[in-house]
Structure formats: C-alpha cells, structure tokens
C-alpha cells in the first residue's frame, strides 16, 4: 500500500478520533450522568456498553485510536534504522499489534454488549 493511502486513512482516523473522543468525554461528564464519579462506576460503565450507540462509539474510538497510535509508532520506528528488512519488520510488527489490540478491544465491547 502506498504511503499516501496510509496517510489519507490516518487523516480520516484523526477526524473520527476527534469526534468520538469529544462525544465519549461528553457522555462521561454531562450527558445523562451526574459527573465523572457516577460515570465511572461499574454499573454505569457496563450499562453504557449495552447501549448500541455507546458501544458503536467505543468501537469507532478504539479503531481510530489504534490506527493513529500505531501509524505514529511505525513512523518513529522507520526512522530509527534503515533497510527494506527493517521496514518489513516494523510494518509486520505494527500490523500484529493492531490485530491483537483490535481483537482484544472489540471482543470486550461485543461481549459486554451481549450482556456477559
């Protein structure tokens, strides 16, 4: 995949991150709950996971944050050493990390949404 495509996807993810993070923080602070203390209680958090809108928002937030963070990590690592082998190693490692992070995170959201 060309670097410009990765960069374009990153810009889209940054926008998604801005919107979903703002909504996420708003929901914690003043939308439907009484302050952070109430929002962070176990029962409130679990209830939020079971609302389709909140669960979708969390899933988008997870994907956007994972992509943006790992894309940045890849860029930093690519600068540290040279050579096509290093490039392939970095991209492979970052893809592996993405699979683990997204798999684990989405599983948590899905399981909680299902009522486990």
């Amino acid at each position, binding site marked *: 995949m*060309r*670097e410009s495509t990765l*960069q*374009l996807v990153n810009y889209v993810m940054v926008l998604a991150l801005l919107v979903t993070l703002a909504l996420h923080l708003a929901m914690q602070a003043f939308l439907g709950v009484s302050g952070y203390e109430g929002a962070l209680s176990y029962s409130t958090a679990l209830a939020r996971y079971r609302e389709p809108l909140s669960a979708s928002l969390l899933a988008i937030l997870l994907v956007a944050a994972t992509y943006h963070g790992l894309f940045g990590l890849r860029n930093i690592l690519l*600068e*540290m050493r*040279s050579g096509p082998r290093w490039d392939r190693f970095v991209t492979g490692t970052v893809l592996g990390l993405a699979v683990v992070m997204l798999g684990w995170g989405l599983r948590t959201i899905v399981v909680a949404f299902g009522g486990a």
Partner: protein
Amino acid sequence: MVVEIQEPAPRQKVHHVAVPRQARRGMTVLLKVYRHNPSAAGDKPRMVTYRVPNTKGLTVLDALLWVKEHVDPGLAFRYSCRMGICGSCGMLINGKPALGCETQIAELGTDVVEVGPLTNYPVIRDVATDFTDFFSHHRTVRPYLIRQEEATGPVRRELLQTEEEKLAYYQFAMCIMCGLCDAACPVVAMDREYLGPQALAQAYRFLADSRDQGWEERMEAVDAPHGCFRCELAGSCSAVCPKGVDPDLGTQLLKRAVLRGRLKGT
C-alpha cells in the same frame, strides 16, 4: 576532543605574508577548524585553532584558504566558484550550516569562528564531506523533464509556458545543491534513507512544471515509506538555504499534490 593552537611556522611568519594594515595592528580572528582524517589509522577528531589576519570583507572561505596557504597545506575543504553559485563550500560555521564563501567573518559578530564539516554527511577529511547519498537521493526523484512522447522519438516542438506556469516552480529551480538543507534536517539525521528536503523540493519542482509528464515515475520514490510523508515540518531546511529557496514549502506542496493525486486515483 583535543584543542591545540597552531600559529604559522617560523619560516612563514605573519610579517612575511602580505598582511593588511589592520592585521598588523592585531586585528586577527581565531579560526577553530575541525580536523579529522577517518582513513588514517589512529587519527582522532580534534579542533585546531589558527590565528588569521582579519581584513575587510574576509569570508570564512578566505580564512580557510589563508590557513591552507600560510599554515597548513594539508587542511581539506571543498570550494570552487567563491561567489555562492556552485554550492561547493557548505560547512558548519559556528554551529550553523552555511556557505563559507558567502559568510563574512564580520557578520558573525565574533572574532572566534568555529568551522566544521556539514552534519548528516560522512566526513572524508577535515571539513570535506561525502555527498554520495545526497546525490543518490537527488537522482532517485528523476530531476529532469520527463516527456512521454520521448519514448517514440525526440520532441520536435517548443514547449511553451505562461509566466504563471513558470512561477509555479521557479523558486525551486534556484537550488544549487549545496546540501545545507539536508545538513539542517533532523529527519535526515535519523533516517539515512529519507530523501531529504533538497530531493523532495526538486521532485516538486518538476511535478509543478507544466511541461513535465513524469508523475508516475516520481511517485515511486516520493510516495514511499522514506518519501515526502516523513517530513516533520521542522522548517530548518528553509532557514539555512543560501539562495532563498523554501524546500519546506516544496515538500508540503509535494505532499498536497501526492494526496490530491491519490484521491483522484492517479
């Protein structure tokens, strides 16, 4: 790092040289020069200080030439035109990349001048550095007009341009390939494969040229992991350019062109 002061040898006393009146009154500058020969076993980097007579309009290159002529013929540095055209005498002057021939001692505001090799380049000897990677990156972006019709034969007509079309790339055509921008770039310092501001600005120079048709060929180099998107917007390349070119602007315009091209599916 060892610091030593080298005065002219006894047989080359200052008063034997055509030293201007100011110098005889004691107006001298201390020129601290990085000395190192990596190919000589056991030779370690050191700063050697020379006392050079200061004259009106004395440039750092003049001072180095004076040292080479009167004190140490073994001092290595690169130069050619002495008038800021060829871009050969790029060096680190008091910590900043600059052309030796364009930097007057007086404008530095100090009588102690430190001269070293450009950062981000391997040292060949003393102040002379190896530009192999730099030229290789430059060649990678194909810095020449590419015409598709040339595949079938030579161009048989003039390729006309409007003034506006010329201004789209004109400032980037002023690059003299002195390499100061790459020496100042923090990304080049980290990433040896990064094309660097000079090559990227030149890629844009030809992409923005209305006569050029080499989009696809250049994209292979520019739209790559070590291409234009590695630029971190430090802007130091533009700050040191002796010709007033803005390589940082060229790189950002190149990024925009590449992203627009991607959105259009080219």
